[in-house]
Structure formats: C-alpha cells, structure tokens
C-alpha cells in the first residue's frame, strides 16, 4: 500500500514536471513548481510512514517555507515584468 502511494506521488510529480517544462507562460511554471512542493512534502510524509521514523520530517518544513517564498517572489516578478 505504501509503495503504491509512493508510485502514485511519483506519477503526480512527473505530471507537474512536464507542465513545468512545457509552460507555456511563466505563471504556468510557477503553478507547477508550487504543486511540486506539495508533492515533495507528501512524499516525505509517506516515506516517514514507510520508514516508521521522523528522520526526514524537518525537510518538509524547509521545503514548504522555501516553496511559498519562491512562488510569491516569482508572482511579483510576473506582475511587474509580464509572463
């Protein structure tokens, strides 16, 4: 079950990666990166369940904060420069 959840999250990450490469606009790429952050955090959660240890849970906090900051900064960039 846990392995299946990890594979599903991998598929979701692949979808977001394709949208990140294809674009077409900068705003689409920001949306894809924002979604990818959630997928990464969810994958670390599932990995913690698989491992039954909280070793890597600190990563989720850092990734969530950096993801929000990056998305907000990039949105300001799009607003000023155009996408």
């Amino acid at each position, binding site marked *: *079950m*846990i392995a*299946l*959840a*990890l594979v*599903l*999250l991998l*598929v*979701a*990450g*692949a*979808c*977001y990666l*394709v*949208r990140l490469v294809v674009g*077409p*606009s900068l*705003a*689409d790429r*920001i*949306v*894809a990166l*924002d*979604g990818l952050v*959630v*997928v990464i*955090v*969810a994958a670390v*959660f*599932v990995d*913690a*369940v*698989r491992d*039954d*240890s*909280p070793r890597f*849970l*600190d990563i*989720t*906090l850092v990734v*969530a*904060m950096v*993801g*929000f900051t990056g*998305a*907000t900064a990039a*949105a*300001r960039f*799009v*607003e000023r*420069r*155009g*996408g």
Partner: protein
Amino acid sequence: MDALTGILAVLGALLVVLAGVGVLRFRDLYSRMHAATKATTLGFALVALAAALAVDAGRGKILLATVFIFVTGPASAHFIGRAAYRAEGIDVRLDGPDDLGDLLDGAAGSPGE
C-alpha cells in the same frame, strides 16, 4: 503501520495524481490552478493524516508542515492569479462577467484617482 494508514495514504496520493493530471491537461492557467489548489489540498490532508497516525515521534512536525501548507497554499495561489490577470499575454480565458476588470476600469475612470 496498519491498514487504515495505507488506505488513507493511497487515497491521498490518488487525489494528488488527479491534480497532476488536471494541471497537465487543462488548457488555460485558471483551470490549471483550480485543479492544482483544490484537489491537492484534500489529497495532502489525507496523506498527512496517514502519516500522523503512523509516525508517533513526528506528529508535531507533520502538523506544523500541514498547517503551513494549508495557510500558504491559497495565499500563493491568490498572488499568482492576480499577477497573471495583470500581466499581458497570459491565456486566462475568463468566462462570464469580469468583475475585477470592471472594478479596475471604474477606479481608473473616476475623478480624483
């Protein structure tokens, strides 16, 4: 790890996959954001619930990360949506009445602005 944890994790991952497929296949920015924000929120909540049930030592961190993503997700989606509306050349395919456009036009046209 019991069966409930596995079921919750797989259900949540399925919803995240649905969001990914929506982001991949929808044809304009606002539709993609609709898929990415709504379906991901419920899917992520289910995965976080599964992890909080299974990992005894890490409940605080899981709760903290979940609350943080729940608070910042709508905020960053709002910023991206506003930026895309104001930027030129992004296909946002507005259907129906454009209330924000009327509001901005009215503010620009009124005296004293």
